[in-house]
């Protein structure tokens, strides 16, 4: 039964890779046949469309945003889980409420805001909204984790006279590697694939990220379908590799994070 499921998942992916090596015509004639001659040039062409640059931009934006998301959310959720703060519940609801806004609703308002702040068409125009929209889910994940975290270690440290900050940095954070990895992966996936903000807030050719680069294969009358598929394969690979790499710690992290405590 599982093998059937595997087929359902793997076959479409295989299909995409297979077709990325064909010409557009071959694709429409019979999309399930093997390519006549594998057209690796599709990959070369996709790369030449500027993928090297797209990669760099996507990587830069993702790394910076995810780092900020994880850091800010870690501090925030730890504080909310442990410390006595006034309005704690309000803050919590506020942040998690941030999960509710869909990017399309925010387009115009943010466009005008960024224009006013003069960060339109800069890396910040992507990094800042990614952080803002990424924090709610990250806090959601990490709050549950920290709530469950056994307090003994921290109590011991506090008796020894450590400040909260030190406790967090030296004790809690290192042991929380799993949840941090988990949050990082989840945030990375959504940032890497984000399209709408990267499209509307950026004009400069040099700042274009992968999803926007991919959309350029599609024109009104003719679309370079197989080139686009090659591009998609190139675009998905890093995330897939990163995931497989981190999958061990990822799973452990998500465990501890989301079970309610």
């Amino acid at each position, binding site marked *: 039964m599982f093998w059937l499921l595997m087929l359902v998942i793997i076959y479409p992916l295989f299909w995409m890779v297979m077709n990325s090596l064909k010409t557009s015509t071959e694709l429409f004639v019979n999309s399930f046949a093997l390519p006549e001659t594998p057209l690796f040039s599709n990959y070369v062409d996709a790369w030449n469309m500027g993928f090297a640059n797209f990669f760099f931009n996507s990587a830069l934006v993702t790394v910076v945003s995810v780092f900020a998301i994880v850091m800010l959310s870690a501090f925030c959720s730890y504080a909310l889980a442990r410390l006595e703060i006034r309005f704690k519940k309000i803050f919590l609801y506020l942040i998690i409420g941030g999960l509710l806004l869909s990017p399309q609703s925010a387009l115009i308002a943010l466009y005008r805001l960024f224009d006013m702040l003069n960060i339109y068409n800069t890396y910040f125009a992507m990094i800042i909204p990614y952080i803002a929209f990424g924090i709610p889910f990250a*806090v959601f994940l990490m709050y549950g984790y920290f709530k469950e975290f056994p307090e003994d270690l921290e109590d011991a440290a506090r008796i020894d006279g450590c400040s909260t900050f030190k406790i967090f940095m030296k004790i809690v954070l290192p042991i929380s590697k799993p949840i941090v990895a988990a949050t990082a992966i989840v945030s990375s996936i959504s940032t890497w694939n984000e399209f709408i903000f990267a499209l509307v807030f950026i004009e400069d050719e040099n700042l274009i990220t992968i999803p926007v680069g991919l959309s350029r294969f599609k024109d009104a009358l003719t679309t370079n379908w197989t080139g686009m598929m090659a591009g998609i394969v190139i675009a998905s690979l890093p995330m897939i590799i990163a995931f497989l790499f981190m999958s061990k710690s990822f799973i452990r992290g998500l*465990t501890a994070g*989301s079970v309610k405590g």
Partner: protein
Amino acid sequence: MYVIPAVFFVLMFVYFPIGMNFYNSLFKMNSYSDVKTFVGLKHYVNIFQDPIFYTAIKNNVLYAVFSLIFQVGFGMILAILLEGRYVGKKIGSFFRNVLFVPSIISIPAVALLWYFIYNPQMGLLNGLLENIGLGAMKTAWLANPNTAIYSVIMMSQWQYTGYIMILLVVSIQKIPRELYESAEIDGASEFQKAIHITIPSIKSMLVVTSIITIIGAFKLFSEVYIMTGGGPYNTTQVLGTYMYRAAFKFDEMGYGSAVAVVIFIITFAISILQLRSFTDD
């Protein structure tokens, strides 16, 4: 103090647009002109009188229901089976990872893939049906008003069931072995173990995944927009595409903002209800 930076970001860049939406929903305006006419709650009145709005809500609800059944329900069954030691560790790991991969691929890619699967002329689905003798069922999956929304929904289940499944797997891994061992001593079957031990122990994760799925169902936009554009005959419209259409195709930012406010209120209400059980536990 730890809290402030995060709150600041979210307030500024997430709530500010929400606020702008509330404000803009009271006007008739578009994105490129300076003209702004106050219309009060007129947009909201129009929204509730528009049959397409109700189609959209119906579709969002359908999507939520299917997602709960497949992603959470089926995901849970898969998770239990995978962790129940029916499969070896290595293979189990392999299955887990493969099932997760679709959720990593960006939506335009998945949509493109499924356009070809659903294609009536040379698509995988119709070809398959033909081959197993069910040729009579062939149709234009995305262009047939009876099947279109379900086709989009199933594509999402393909993409995200593995994602939810993994969250549940991870929850199950935390359950102490002893619980199962003592049940085995009492002669419990696998099925009984699952019902009485596994499921109750992952209750909170089930709630979390349900929240995520339902919120996702109401925020839905890209999948529908790319696959069907809301057609055929507006039968696949969801709140997200309905809003987008108003704001960007009809140039009615005000109306679009009003729809955005409605979406926000709906998801907010649902989340509050569910969050309540989450934090009260």
